């Protein structure tokens, strides 16, 4: 027997299963990143001194991170445009926007890797100070989430796109769900960026 409401919405909730599922997962992610933000606050307020991200001994690059912020915001737009294209039954547009989203992910990770490399060159490691510890942990976990999203998006751009031919509505839903995850990853960065780099 088929599982009901995988594609069509259940009348009383108005939702299809995966949409509820992803929001629940995102709720748990809010608690995960929230725990790390809470840890950041506790460590910072408990410290006798806490360096500014821009301070020379820390050397975080605001320009690079600003570019990364723009990259991620742009990828968020292209992600939702990819979904909108599928709603308008334009598969070619979907592929274009999804490709851009994935490439933006590469750009983000590329800039991030460069940032990490410069830190390591200057002998700034997680163990150097609590600032770097929480910086690397927060951005590292976020980066892993970006990577995860890129893999999922890559699948849906590539082999997974076959489903558009067999079950277009279900495929569109999957892109919506993947999009919700991707927007969340963008949302976390929107908070990470000022907290780590600007304060």
């Amino acid at each position, binding site marked *: 027997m088929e599982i009901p409401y995988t594609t069509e919405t259940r009348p009383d909730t108005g939702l299809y299963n995966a949409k509820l599922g992803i929001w629940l997962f995102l709720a748990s992610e809010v608690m995960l990143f929230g*725990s790390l933000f*809470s840890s950041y*606050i506790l460590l910072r307020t408990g410290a006798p001194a806490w360096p500014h991200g821009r301070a020379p001994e820390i050397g975080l690059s605001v320009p690079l991170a600003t570019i990364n912020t723009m990259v991620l915001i*742009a990828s968020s*737009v292209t992600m939702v445009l990819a979904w*909108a294209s599928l709603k308008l039954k334009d598969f070619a547009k979907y592929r274009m926007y999804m490709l851009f989203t994935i490439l933006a992910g590469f750009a983000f990770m590329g800039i991030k890797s460069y940032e990490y490399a410069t830190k390591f060159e200057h002998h700034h490691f997680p163990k150097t100070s609590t600032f770097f510890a929480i910086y690397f942990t927060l951005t590292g976990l976020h980066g892993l989430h970006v990577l995860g999203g890129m893999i999922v998006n890559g699948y849906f751009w590539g082999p997974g796109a076959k489903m558009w031919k067999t079950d277009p509505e279900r495929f569109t839903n999957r892109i919506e769900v993947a999009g919700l995850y991707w927007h969340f990853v963008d*949302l976390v960065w929107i908070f990470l960026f000022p907290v780590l780099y*600007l304060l």
Partner: protein
Amino acid sequence: MSAHDDPESIRREVKAYITVFVSLAVLTVLTVAVSYFHMPVGLAVLVALVIATFKGSLVAAVFMHLRAEKKLIYWVLVLTVIFFIVLMSIPSISQWDQRMLR
């Protein structure tokens, strides 16, 4: 699925996406610019978080379709926000009323 599946509604949504994108870009520049002004730490944190929250709300409401979402999702999120606030109170619980360990 949703009542707004027709091409016209989608195209209007697309307009909203682009508007939000531009707003987010502008707000990002604003966040960076404001950070160069000298202000007490508390105020700097407040301003940065207010702008970030506004940006986040745009992403959530428009990109993530929350402004048109079903009640159930709202309730899940309200519950989450409540517990998130409790989680964020840990630093104060830990430090405000402490007698020995600091």
